[in-house]
């Protein structure tokens, strides 16, 4: 049987991780890069970044935050990722992670 995966999900809005209830009442949960690094270090199988307002605001998803991080496989909500940008994110992924010693990310 294939291993079951644990995937922390980072809902991102305006460059911050947020979390709501029933998709409403968003609360700030911290910096996406710092949070993602902690999950990567802790052994998450994948990370899921959701740019939760891209469709509503009728714009492309924001990939820049991933360029600053160095993680395992990412997933993004929309498959229409610009190819060039995705290549950049892949090249960043292959770099050695420089993990900050932040045990808390606020």
């Amino acid at each position: 049987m294939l291993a079951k995966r644990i995937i922390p999900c980072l809902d991102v809005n305006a460059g911050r991780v947020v979390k709501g209830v029933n998709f409403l009442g968003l609360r700030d949960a911290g910096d996406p890069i710092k949070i993602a690094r902690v999950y990567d270090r802790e052994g998450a199988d994948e990370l899921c970044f959701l740019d939760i307002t891209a469709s509503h605001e009728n714009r492309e998803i924001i990939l820049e935050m991933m360029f600053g991080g160095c993680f395992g496989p990412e997933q993004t909500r929309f498959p229409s990722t610009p190819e060039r940008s995705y290549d950049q994110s892949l090249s960043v992924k292959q770099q050695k992670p420089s993990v900050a010693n932040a045990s808390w990310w606020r």
Partner: protein
Amino acid sequence: MVAIDAKRAARGWEVFTHGGRRPTGIDACAWAEKMESYGAGEILLTSMDRDGTKEGYDLELTRTISDRLRIPVIASGGAGSLEHIYEGLTIGKASAALAASIFHYREYTIMECKNYLREREVPIRMPAQGR
């Protein structure tokens, strides 16, 4: 990967778009099957009813769609405890469990979650030594 945001309807579940703002009138089960037939490799299945509530995944939704598809389904929306994650992977038959609140607010670490599942004989990939 196709993400589906689903909300309980009079019958079954309805697909919403635009961050839950727009109802589509599309049945979530039928949509998931269609996405698989179009070549989707995986479904991220989020219960809007459970999102952020920490009441547990919508196991009926997760199981219904997992049973109908061959591709992996990721359970999402509602995980509030490690037991919920266990249930999503067993009762819900999901291939993966997605969670936000319990990890963001440091209620559990990833390893606490994985150890809990491993003790209950769920196949889990443990990270390499020295990470």
